[in-house]
């Protein structure tokens, strides 16, 4: 069968990727620039025998996808900055209750309602820390429409495999971009299902982790009757306030991600083998960084690009390894404070030559913006 190539918008590819991964429950509240995902789901979910629910707010949307997931669904929601802020309360429950689900946060300009239709990459820290309590999540970020499709499948796979919420955070540029996508046929991409319990139902403990750090998850309605709680609980899911239990639980939530860190942290590299300048980027800035690197190569400057696909956990090992040979690192991101640059600095230390290219006015970072920063000191870098 000939492979199907379709012109798709990023948001549409995200919805298609979710259907491919087996998502059959969507709950959300419309918000620019993510609404096309809701529109696509409202059309396609009932055709697929799934369900589209338009909830009263993002708090309820997050709650509903957790409820549906516990009833056995692969479920997801889509939103943008302000809505993502509202989801954080119940996102915390998905972490604590180890409930697989996917949250799409199409990043737009802030603070607050900001430039509602304009792109940003300023939620990097909100993705990581935007919930109370000490916890850990997985966050992915696509740079192309093809990645919107394939990485959405990856997001569901991670959610199912590790029993946690996965945040998928394209910026508005990529979400609204239209590109040709070679649509994977059935079986082309791996689709992972959550581990189900086996054995005597009365002995089932929803938080008793196997050797891989993840406990099997039954569905409400199964003979494996179980409790899920937002409050501190033991392996059996019932309230347990002992310090020893809390020590085990909180560590366990982190540990299952740490154990599989190398599988979770995804990066792409472009001409980094001999690079003396390394551009570190994610999402739309990957595209301008690649164009800038090509231009620099034409000028005889050996530049390469590291694309962070997985934003969290951070690609510290990968950054450290690649930067052993480069003289200068340039982090390009659409925010003021250098949210990723700070992480890079943490890895490389204060002595490293780490520069920043930032935009925070709703405008994309262009290759020229990057070249300008590099060009101002290009002689020093290459001398």
């Amino acid at each position, binding site marked *: 069968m000939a492979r199907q190539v379709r012109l798709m918008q990023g948001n549409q590819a995200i919805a298609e990727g979710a259907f491919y991964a087996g998502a059959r429950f969507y709950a959300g509240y419309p918000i620019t620039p993510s609404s096309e995902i809701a529109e696509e789901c409202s059309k396609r979910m*009932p055709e697929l025998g799934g369900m589209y629910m338009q*909830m009263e707010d993002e708090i309820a949307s997050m709650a509903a996808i957790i*409820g549906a997931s516990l009833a056995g669904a692969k479920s997801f929601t889509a939103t943008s900055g302000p809505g993502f802020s509202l989801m954080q309360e119940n996102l915390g*429950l998905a972490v604590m209750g180890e409930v697989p689900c996917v949250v799409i946060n199409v990043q737009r300009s802030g603070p607050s309602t900001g430039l509602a239709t304009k792109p940003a990459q300023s939620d990097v820290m909100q993705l990581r820390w935007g919930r109370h309590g000490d916890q850990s999540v997985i966050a992915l970020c696509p740079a192309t429409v093809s990645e919107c499709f394939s990485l959405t499948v990856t997001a569901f796979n991670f959610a199912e495999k590790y029993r946690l919420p996965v945040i998928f955070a394209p910026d508005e540029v990529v979400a609204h971009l239209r590109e040709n996508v070679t649509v994977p046929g059935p079986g082309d991409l791996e689709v992972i299902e959550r581990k189900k319990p086996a054995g005597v139902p009365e002995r089932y403990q929803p938080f008793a982790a196997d050797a891989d750090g993840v406990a099997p998850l039954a569905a409400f*309605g199964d003979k494996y*009757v179980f409790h*899920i709680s*937002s409050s501190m609980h033991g392996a059996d899911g019932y309230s347990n306030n002992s310090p020893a239990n809390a020590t085990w639980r909180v560590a366990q939530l982190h540990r299952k991600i740490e154990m599989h860190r190398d599988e979770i942290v995804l990066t792409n590299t472009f001409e980094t083998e001999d690079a003396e300048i390394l551009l570190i980027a994610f999402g739309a800035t990957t595209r301008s960084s690649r164009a800038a690197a090509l231009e620099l190569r034409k000028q005889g400057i050996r530049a390469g690009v590291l694309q962070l696909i997985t934003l969290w956990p951070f690609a510290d090992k990968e950054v450290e390894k690649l930067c052993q040979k480069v003289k200068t690192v340039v982090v390009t991101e659409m925010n003021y404070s250098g949210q990723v640059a700070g992480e890079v600095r943490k890895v490389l230390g204060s002595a490293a030559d780490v520069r920043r290219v930032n935009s925070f006015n709703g405008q994309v970072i262009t290759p020229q913006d990057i070249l300008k920063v590099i060009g101002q000191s290009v002689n020093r870098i290459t001398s």
Partner: protein
Amino acid sequence: MSHATGTKYLKNGVLPHMWCSGCGIGVMLGALLRSFEELGYERDDTVVVTGIGCTGKADDYLITHALHTTHGRALAYATGIKAFNPRLHVVVLMGDGDSVTIGGNHFLHAARRNMDLTAIIINNFNFGMTGGQFSGTTPGGMFSQTCVYGNPERGIDICALAEVAGANYVARATPYHVWEMKTNIKEALGKKGFSVVEVYSPCPTNFGRHNNMKSTPDMLHWLRDKGLSVEEYNRRKTAEKEGYFAVGKLVDRDEPDFNERYDQIRTIARKSQGRC
């Protein structure tokens, strides 16, 4: 003749429960579990969803499927569960804080959607778990830890709200009228669509003590003396209703629930596949 005890849904070794003496939550839970038994509910086809607060602790005593959630969001979680698996009996236990204060928006919309859920609401007119502050149902002029000079706000009528928002079944009960409470809970569980049983619950510890009802008997006498049958309440002129409340079934209708309507949407969508 044997009576349902409801003990088959109770976790071993957790009694006595944690609620204060005189509290109505245990009475409600007893009536609920007896109703489960009489209706033939099984542990594995029943999901109890709770929120936060005194009532939110109820799932600790149960061995049905259960989800203990964040404050005020229980109905939204339950909505996702029921929407995806309509075969489950989904029961939501909330307090007045959960249901109509922090969670008021979810309450309105669960009723508007007519989700096939049974919401049992313990209304003790205050935030008991945090020490007795006023809530969205504390009547105007009454006293609490955060309205020591009297409540400047008015309390909301949960049953009236449920009715206008579209619930199929609405009743008010009290632990004083415990037999009627079980009847209402059973009817609510059996009703398709959104059903609400509001339980006026004594809270001598945190509400009564600020409002001249320091003891459990004081609070029960209040429920006995001020709670009128729906018929009697409706017979009275407005002025004669002041300070009284109706006990019993207030709304009973059969509008199609959300899942039934969504099944129709699926049928239409499949017929017009690709043409929308």
